[in-house]
């Protein structure tokens, strides 16, 4: 079994057993939807408002998961184990990013239907939304893993992740909401510039996966 | 976007250039504070170096230090250290800074 698969399997198994990230993220999302319902005083959302509420909530829920991504490694000496093992260290980056991707997909499988239930008048947007969400999750996973690994070894780690991560994901959010907004328009899903936004998402994913791959080794040096 | 009348427009342009100037001056002020601290520390260190060297009665004073009586132990900052050449070396400018 390759190092990547081994680490990924360990993480997923650990999450299944302890259930410490994904349920919290999902619960946080649903509660936030309720807060938005009252904060905006609306029971139905369309267009840019719908896209904004959805993506802002998913982003903040993701931050919760990203904060916890490397905690086990730090507390149980996993970093040392990786350093000592004769494997390519970027396997850790790839495995953690893949794990985070899985968490985000599961989060969305729970949160997005509930969002549609609370606020959308028709589920027609959900299928194309899946494509947007997948690409956005990939970018979020890459950047989140990178920032999380940098923050885990510093003081005030829980503060640093949101602080540094949020500006970095602004282009991601712009593209995700840009694609989602016409999907949730009043008259039914529209695809204005859908391809462009998906291209931007893909570009973001590519760049940050490459950057993460290139620099991760330096983060593990001691 | 119709252009503002010259008087009003002039204020905004002036404000922009003044902000630029103010930022430069603020930067200079901060660097001045840093320079002051460096000077203070150097003075302290020079004094320290002096007290260390002075137990040797006939020892030569540190190169470049002027007007210091080698037989008298220094106890406080030496007023003669005020000139920039006081700290050993060919001058306080970084031109003579040792290689790192």
């Amino acid at each position, binding site marked *: 079994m390759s190092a990547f698969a081994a680490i990924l399997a360990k993480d997923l198994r650990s999450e299944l057993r302890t259930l410490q990230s994904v349920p919290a993220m999902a619960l946080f999302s649903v509660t936030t939807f309720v807060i938005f319902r009252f904060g905006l005083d609306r029971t139905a959302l369309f267009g*840019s408002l719908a896209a904004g509420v959805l993506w802002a909530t998913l982003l903040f829920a993701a931050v919760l998961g990203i904060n916890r991504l490397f905690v086990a490694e730090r507390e149980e000496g996993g970093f040392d184990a990786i350093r000592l093992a004769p494997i390519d260290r970027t396997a850790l980056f790839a495995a953690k990013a893949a794990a985070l991707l899985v968490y985000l997909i599961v989060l969305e499988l729970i949160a997005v239907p509930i969002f549609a239930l609370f606020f959308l008048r028709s589920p027609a947007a959900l299928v194309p939304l899946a494509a947007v969400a997948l690409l956005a999750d990939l970018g979020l996973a890459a950047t989140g893993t*990178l920032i999380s690994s*940098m*923050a885990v*070894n510093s*003081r005030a780690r829980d*503060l640093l992740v949101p*602080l*540094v991560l949020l*500006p*970095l994901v*602004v*282009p991601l959010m*712009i*593209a995700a909401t*840009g694609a989602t*907004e016409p999907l949730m328009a009043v008259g039914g899903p529209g695809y*204005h*510039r859908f391809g462009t936004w998906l291209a*931007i998402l893909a*570009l*973001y994913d590519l*760049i*940050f996966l490459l*950057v993460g791959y290139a*620099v991760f080794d*330096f*983060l593990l*040096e001691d | *976007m119709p*252009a*503002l009348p*010259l008087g009003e*427009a*002039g204020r*905004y*342009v002036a*404000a*922009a*250039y003044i902000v*630029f100037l103010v*930022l*430069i001056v603020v*930067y200079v002020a901060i*660097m001045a504070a*840093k*320079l002051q601290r*460096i000077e203070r*520390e*150097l003075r302290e*260190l020079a004094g320290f*170096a002096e007290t260390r060297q002075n137990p040797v009665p006939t020892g030569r004073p540190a190169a470049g230090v002027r007007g210091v009586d080698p037989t008298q132990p220094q106890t406080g900052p030496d007023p003669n250290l005020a000139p920039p050449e006081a700290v050993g070396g060919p001058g306080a*400018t*970084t*031109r*003579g*800074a*040792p*290689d*790192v």
Partner: protein
Amino acid sequence: MTSFGFGLKTLSTATVVTLTAALCLVFFYAPLDANQGFIQKIFYLHVPLAMTALTGYIVGGLLAIAHLRTGERRWDAYSYVSIHISVIFSVAVLITGSIWAKASWGHWWVWEEPTLVSFLIVFLLYATYYPFRYAIEDPERQARYASVFAVTAGAFVPLNFLAVRLTPSLVHPRVLATANGGLPNSMLLTFLVCLAAIVLLWITLVKFELTAKSASGQVKRLRRALDAPAPNGPSRVAPEVG
């Protein structure tokens, strides 16, 4: 390692001369813009500052790559200073941009100008460089992680500009773009001299900052060599140039 103060005087003199020439050109030579009138003069300051700051961030990223590849700490210090001066220039960009927005649109901030908005995001990101950096106590690790940050952020800058430029709600034409295209020669000359002046200013400030860092570093070194007691009060771990 040569001393950093070498050539600082010449550089500062060149900067002062070019800045003065630039200011003279802006106010005595460049013609008045037909559309925006006198307000347009802000661009001679705002745009060079923006271009220099962005280049500075990219340079910071490149220097960080050098640090990661060679392991020499001085590259990290160069990267830090590049980013630091660029952040200061960014503050000037945002303030002058805001003044221009007030003069043109009547509001101190407008979301319609994508370059300004992109700049805000970039500034917010690089502003986190400091708390991020100083939260790591081990100096070597701090330098390495800061370099990783600088590289990531450097890659982020062009992507961010692209994304913001495509934001759907931009109805109004982008003035900064039109201000640059099709400039008459007199304006172009003025702009280029202003750009040269601001770039020289950036280089001078970077050198200035590096000289101060070098001096502090020498003081520390002297202190260690003399076995003198350390200065009282906590001092945070900061990038050192050697």
